[in-house]
């Protein structure tokens, strides 16, 4: 069976091309069941994008949930030992509320997980795949990269912790420099430290340039380790010609309880929100009692419908009108021959209300005549 790509919507196109991309890198499709015990999510609520979960009671009385997330279901069963690496991708519907939407929605999500022994090669592979995923979706895309250890290391080094750390992270996330300055002034944080926090917050630059710019800010073991890891990643990516379009933005902060190493977020022009999000989540693995490391990402395909501007101009290329007394075999043949030219053709006795067509044709015994052309 061959499927014409033009008939597909953006999200459907994305599903097929992403699947092909991930298989080319040796990732295998992983299917998980629609339902999961609620308990799994209750224990890891803040890992989820929205904390609302659709639940029901199963026939045996267990409280079940319609999956709001796939990652937890996948790592639940793997990653007990760090000698084996699993490379998986999925394409599943998840159920959750989203900002602004009234109630629960079914959302199609594609993602990829690499679980096991995670080294520089695996990290770079996942980042490359994240970037290629964005490129498949739009020619105008950006992948932002950050490292949890970088910001956390700086804060530890300065001695900011607890509630203070939470509020500072919130300011960093909103690039709110005036609040950061006031925060530092209130706590008598030295000018050099305050400037360091402001500099990494305001920083937004291509990866190579950004790493150069923050070199002198790096202090303490944790921050140094994070910096070295980012430099290592950049080295590999640029050697393969994959570093273009990757920007460093340390204001992208994920939950520190789950994510620990490198994190990233993807954007395409025309969608006012991130459509890809991921990172290494060894901390979550540890929380779930797993020894292995893990890195992965998810692509939120529901947002891609906003990119469908062109294809929706017409419902059909050709609307072919016939009369009730016409020779139906000839009508069908005329329509088939038009379809053979690559057009979409709809046959009707009279034009349905509100239908948008490129061309209106009329079938009569003498042949097909053009009544109207819209293009």
């Amino acid at each position: 069976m061959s499927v014409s790509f033009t008939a597909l919507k953006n999200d459907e196109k994305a599903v097929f091309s992403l699947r092909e991309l991930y298989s080319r890198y040796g990732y295998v499709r992983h299917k998980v069941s629609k339902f999961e015990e609620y308990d799994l999510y209750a224990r890891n609520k803040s890992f989820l994008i929205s904390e609302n979960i659709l639940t029901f009671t199963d026939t045996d009385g267990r409280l079940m949930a319609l999956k709001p997330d796939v990652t937890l279901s996948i790592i639940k069963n793997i990653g007990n030992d760090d000698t084996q690496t699993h490379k998986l991708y999925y394409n599943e519907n998840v159920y959750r509320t989203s900002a602004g939407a009234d109630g629960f929605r079914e959302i199609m999500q594609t993602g990829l997980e690499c679980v096991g022994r995670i080294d520089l090669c695996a990290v770079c592979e996942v980042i490359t795949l994240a970037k290629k995923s964005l490129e498949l979706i739009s020619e105008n895309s950006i992948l932002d990269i950050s490292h949890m250890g970088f910001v956390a290391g700086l804060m530890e080094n300065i001695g900011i912790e607890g509630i203070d750390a939470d509020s500072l992270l919130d300011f960093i996330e909103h690039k709110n420099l005036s609040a950061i300055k006031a925060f530092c002034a209130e706590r008598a944080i030295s000018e050099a430290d305050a400037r360091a926090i402001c500099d990494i917050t305001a920083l937004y630059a291509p990866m190579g340039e950004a790493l150069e710019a923050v070199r002198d800010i790096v202090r303490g073991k944790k921050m140094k380790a994070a910096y070295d890891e980012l430099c290592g990643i950049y080295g590999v990516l640029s050697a393969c010609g994959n570093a273009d379009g990757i920007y460093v933005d340390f204001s992208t902060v994920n939950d520190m309880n789950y994510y620990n190493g490198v994190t990233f977020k993807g954007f395409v022009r025309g969608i006012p929100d991130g459509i890809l999000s991921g990172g290494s989540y060894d901390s979550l693995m540890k929380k779930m009692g797993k020894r292995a490391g893990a890195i992965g990402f998810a692509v939120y395909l529901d947002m891609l419908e906003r990119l469908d501007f062109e294809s929706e101009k017409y419902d059909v290329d050709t609307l072919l009108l016939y009369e009730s007394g016409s020779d139906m075999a000839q009508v069908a043949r005329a329509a088939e021959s038009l379809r053979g030219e690559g057009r979409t053709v709809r046959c009707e006795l009279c034009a349905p209300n509100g239908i948008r067509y490129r061309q209106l044709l009329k079938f009569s015994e003498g042949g097909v005549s053009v009544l109207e052309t819209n293009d």
Partner: protein
Amino acid sequence: MSLKQMINIALPKGRLGEKAYRVFEAAGYECPSIREENRKLIFENEEKGIRYFWVKPSDVVIYVERGAADIGIAGKDIILEYSPDIYELADLGMGKCRMAVACKRDFCDNRDKTLRVATKFPNIAKKYYNSQSREIDIIKLNGSIELAPILGLSDVIVDIVETGKTLYENDLEPRETIVDISARLVANKVSYKFKNAEITAMCERISEQIKKN
């Protein structure tokens, strides 16, 4: 220049927006047509690559968060109330006031009772009293908040106080300051990435202009 290439700026209708526009104008982002008296909603200066539009002050953050505007001017009160996922790039230092708790002059707070709070800002009020572990009953109003304690609808109000004149004239007084408020330059997170050079330059020029004033 295509529609998407321009920088879209949402200004809050009213005095604050007009003042903010003057700063943009002085910083080199003028748009003469905005001063013409007409019913147009959108004003653009193609040469400078900017497009302004006036929206209800509380809607600015919605336009920005959803990407219909790349940049906006919003009061800190609105940002705190709606907690939008946007960048807060600069404090414009204008439209200064404070969010405060006010009540009748003779009101005596009894911690034994649930406090009835009338406000236009339920989230700010809830957060403030939560931090004090105080049980409250929120009464969400849309205007004339000062009436509530006078008519016995609420014990206190949480509202914006500029000079306090309206309060004093109505036998009310501000008791506690919750947070200081001023106008902020905000940006959509994705626009900030795709139009980074333009937005960063604009932010710098606006900040310089603010320092001058």
